[in-house]
């Protein structure tokens, strides 16, 4: 060792004898002393001076804040009938106690709760790293049997805990599924979205439809409850509760009866139906097929089920009423006619249809040889040749002007998420989208609603019923704004931006001609495309559309992928309609088929209206009739019943014996009176019991009754008894 010391080391020999200056070391020493004093001082302050305060806090530390869940608001239809509600459900948790080996209990738990043992073990394994006081969810929606099992085994299985939760109950079989939507747990990505700033992991939030749009109103505000826990986190008591504010119930504009009629009408066909009141935009029914069961989403949906829904080629998760963007076919001719009339061209335009016509060097086909037509026949007969000619004369930009004014190519602003805007082609649109010039010849197919045109069902029904309402366009909606608290109204309008409420000015002859044309379509007549949907006694108008799909040509096998889409937009009555219906059958072939379905829906609506209006008006129109009242009383005998009177014996049998004979004897009397609304009862007649009664209500002739029933009914509903 000594020898190695002789070797030159890294440290210079010169500095070997140098020491650290003593003063610096002293400084360090005092520095450390100072630091220690500061620390001791801090401890003194905490423990000696503040000991009691902190002890109290330590006590309080054992208080856990448990949320009191707010009940989610119900969804009702316009008549106040229940559509969606929540039901109480019980979930089961596993609480891990430190001194207990839960694994030995698992087989018993699995048996009692009808769980798969391996899955249970896997769940437990998954949670092994989380803090001990955190309960592990093992089963939701437990049955009363299972609850009884837990209760019965409180001593042997103290680790089992139950908690009451609230679960959403949706109509089965996908009834109104797309407009209702569903709820689910907020996801990781959602939490990063500023829209969900007030939401926490585990919160249930609306994920589609009305549940999503109005989630803030439906969810209410959770309260909280202080729960005292022991050092193992088990509840020992409760202390103070802040009640939850329940969510607000929402009344939708939907009418369950009309919705049912619409769902039944569409049946198994893929497509969409929308029934709307064009006076105010209230949606009475909204259907999209195929549908799905939203109850499956309320519990976390299994991965395989989710995949099935996503990959299904018929797109059950798509709300076709607002998302299906398809060529409208002949229904667009109504807009074409409007454009043509407003521009002053169509009034005097007569076209000869020989099964088609030549335009821009091509022959464009028409389904029939319609002969010479004016605008009045062209609409109900849906003559392609006429509208080819009209399209050529108007030019694409003029057509686009009217189309856009009527809302084609723009969202409608309906209060459902993920609405699509469709496409209204124009020269500018083509340049922006494809960087190509518009070829004049492309306007021809647009004229009959094909080509690059794309509309959604909701857009189409709004446009056509708006035209029929003399240009009064509405904002379609499922919830009236007056249902919402003040600040939300503007928020809804701001969130769902679209064409909305608007007035398009139309000349009166445009209005009359187009509505007449649509009304004729359902009237019997040669080539009237919707005559098969005629409704007797109801002013039912509309337009069919048989929209070819790309590459489909003239294929006509129903349901085949190349078969045209069948459209129909119908309304009642023809002018200023109070109901408008659009029916889309994907690959449903001829539009006349959809017309028949629409007719069913209109019929259901009219029948319901008549029932309601009939009852109400009958009662309301008559003045309050006097009411007949019968009474029995005792009083002095008025007269003797002659012995020969046939009813004497009966009377004697009914009436008690007179107390005593003579004029001041008491007898029972019977009679009936007419009591008017504010009158004193007048004694009309006094007779012995069971006199023969004269009818009081006047009989009326059937005609008179009918006339009475029709009083107050809108003109269009008269002539048919309910």
């Amino acid at each position, binding site marked *: 060792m000594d020898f190695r010391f002789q070797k030159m080391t890294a440290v210079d020999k010169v500095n070997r004898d140098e020491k650290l200056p003593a003063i610096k070391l002293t400084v*360090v020493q005092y520095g450390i002393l100072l630091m220690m004093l500061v620390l001791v001082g801090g401890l003194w302050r905490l423990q000696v001076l503040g000991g009691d305060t902190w002890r109290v806090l330590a006590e309080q530390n054992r208080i856990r804040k448990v949320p009191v869940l707010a009940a989610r608001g119900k969804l009702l239809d316009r008549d106040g009938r229940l559509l969606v509600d929540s039901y109480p459900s019980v979930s089961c948790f596993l609480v891990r106690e430190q001194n207990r080996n839960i694994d030995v209990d698992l087989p018993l738990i699995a048996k009692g709760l009808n769980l798969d043992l391996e899955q249970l073990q896997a769940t437990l394994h998954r949670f092994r790293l989380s803090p001990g006081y955190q309960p592990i969810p093992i089963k939701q929606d437990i049955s009363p049997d299972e609850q009884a099992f837990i209760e019965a085994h409180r001593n042997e299985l103290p680790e089992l805990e139950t908690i009451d939760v609230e679960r959403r109950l949706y109509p089965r079989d996908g009834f109104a599924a797309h407009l209702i939507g569903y709820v689910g747990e907020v996801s990781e990505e959602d939490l990063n979205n500023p829209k969900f700033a007030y939401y926490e992991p585990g919160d249930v939030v609306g994920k589609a439809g009305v549940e999503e749009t109005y989630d803030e109103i439906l969810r209410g505000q959770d309260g909280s409850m202080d729960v005292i826990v022991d050092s193992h986190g088990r509840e020992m008591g409760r202390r103070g509760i802040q009640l939850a504010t329940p969510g607000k119930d929402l009344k939708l504009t939907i009418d369950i009866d009309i919705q049912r009629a619409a769902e039944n009408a569409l049946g198994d066909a893929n497509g969409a139906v929308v029934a709307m009141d064009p006076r105010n935009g209230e949606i009475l029914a909204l259907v999209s097929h195929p549908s799905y069961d939203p109850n499956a989403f309320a519990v976390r949906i299994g991965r395989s089920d989710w995949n099935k829904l996503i990959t299904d080629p018929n797109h059950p998760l798509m709300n076709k009423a607002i998302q299906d963007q398809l060529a409208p076919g002949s229904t667009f001719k109504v807009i074409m006619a409007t454009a043509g009339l407003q521009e002053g061209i169509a009034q005097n335009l007569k076209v000869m249809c020989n099964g088609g016509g030549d335009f821009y060097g091509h022959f464009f086909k028409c389904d029939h040889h319609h002969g010479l037509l004016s605008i009045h026949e062209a609409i109900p007969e849906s003559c392609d040749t006429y509208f080819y000619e009209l399209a050529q004369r108007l030019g694409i930009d003029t057509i686009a002007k009217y189309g856009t004014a009527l809302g084609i190519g723009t969202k409608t602003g309906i209060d459902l998420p993920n609405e699509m805007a469709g496409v209204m082609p124009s020269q500018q649109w083509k340049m922006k989208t494809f960087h190509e010039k518009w070829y004049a010849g492309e306007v021809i197919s647009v004229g009959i609603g094909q080509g690059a045109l794309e509309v959604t069902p909701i857009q189409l029904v709004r446009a056509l019923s708006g035209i029929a309402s003399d240009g009064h366009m509405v904002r379609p909606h499922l919830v009236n704004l007056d249902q919402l608290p003040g600040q939300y109204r503007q928020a809804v309008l701001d969130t769902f931006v679209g064409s909305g409420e608007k007035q398009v000015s139309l000349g009166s002859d445009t209005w009359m001609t187009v509505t007449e044309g649509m009304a004729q379509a359902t009237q019997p007549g040669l080539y009237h495309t919707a005559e098969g949907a005629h409704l007797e006694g109801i002013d039912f108008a509309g337009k069919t559309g048989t929209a070819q799909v790309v590459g489909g040509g003239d294929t006509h096998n129903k349901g085949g992928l190349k078969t045209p889409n069948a459209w129909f937009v119908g309304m009642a009555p023809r002018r200023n309609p109070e109901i408008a219906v659009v029916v889309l059958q994907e690959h449903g072939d001829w539009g006349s088929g959809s017309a028949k379905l629409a007719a069913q829906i209109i019929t259901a609506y009219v029948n319901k209206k008549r029932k309601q209006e009939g009852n109400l008006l009958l009662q309301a129109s008559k003045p309050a009739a006097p009411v007949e009242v019968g009474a029995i009383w005792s009083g002095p005998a008025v007269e003797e019943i002659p012995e020969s009177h046939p009813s004497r014996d009966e009377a004697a049998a009914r009436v008690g014996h007179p107390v005593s004979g003579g004029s001041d004897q008491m007898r029972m009397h019977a009679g009936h009176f007419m009591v008017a609304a504010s009158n004193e009862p007048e004694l009309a007649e006094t007779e012995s019991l069971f006199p023969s009664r004269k009818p009081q209500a006047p009989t009326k002739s059937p005609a008179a009754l009918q006339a009475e029933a029709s009083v107050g009914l809108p003109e269009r509903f008269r002539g048919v008894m309910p």
Partner: protein
Amino acid sequence: MRRYLSFRDFDWVLLGLMLMLCTISIFEIYSATQNTKFHGFAGKQVYWILGGLVAMFIVSKIDYHRLLDIVWWLYGFFLLALVAVKLFGHKALGGKRWLKFGPISFQPSEWFKLVLILLMALYFANLGARTLSWRDIFKAIALVGLPMVLVLMQPDLGTALTYTPILLAGLFLGGIHWKQAAILGTVGIMAIVGVWTSGKILKPYQKARLTSFINPDNDPRGSGYQIRQSLIAVGSGGVWGKGAEQGSQTQGDFLPIPHADFIFAAFSEEHGFTGAFLVLLLYFVILMRLIQNAQTAADMSGSLLVMGVVAVLTFQIAVNVGMVIGFMPVTGIPLPLMSYGGSSVLFTFLALGVVMNVRMRRFVN
């Protein structure tokens, strides 16, 4: 001769004090973890302590001058190791801090503390002149700064910060003039402010951790929660404590990481002001003993070595206890000899082994 050396001049007093702390630590870790998933850690700590003792004896045998001879090699090696961690590191706990060789994890940033202490001692001892030139100062800063940046990038703010007291001790004892210190101080503060507000070097959660100690209620779920729980635990201990294994906050699993970062809080809850004061007194005596060793060291490098160890230990104590009582932000710096953790125990024993080393050779010339 050798045996004579090791038997007598070994600082038994120091060893005794250290072992007292270790014993307290074992009992406290046991108490704090008995109901948690960390139970069994007390046993592991015993193994670490035994291993540390062995390491300490070994290190104290090697002449510290030989260590100083190879320190530049060590510096280079561990620098490469830090780079290797960045490239091949084992990801855990949100950072890449370890290299894994089979079952053994190797955390270079911990070992670097020791290397830096040695390096600083050598560097400043060699400078000779009692005043430092700016060039010297910058060189020192660079030597420490480089590994600091590498460690910061892991990211491991806590360990990176422990390199600063080594630098500061070196500068102070190496002869920095107060004017130079003032300039450096100002520049340093400006740099810190710049780093803070730039928002690039410190991640948001790190910034939040550093500020939540000022007002823990601002972040009731994150590090504010930890501080609050710590204050409650310490404060509710009162003067005499709640008794061993009876701290409700510790036992109730309210106190986070009670066996490591917050061991002092667990201890204070159970043994009150008296217990805490005694432990701090123990630390104080140990530090004074170390400084005495520095004073009696054979040469400048030896003194600097010991003072480097003093600097690191003081820093760790100050930051950890400060954190527990709410004076300092939560940084994950362990309390030497008390906190559970192999690398911390090992480092402390090795460092103290080096101190033993210096002390043992103080008469040899």
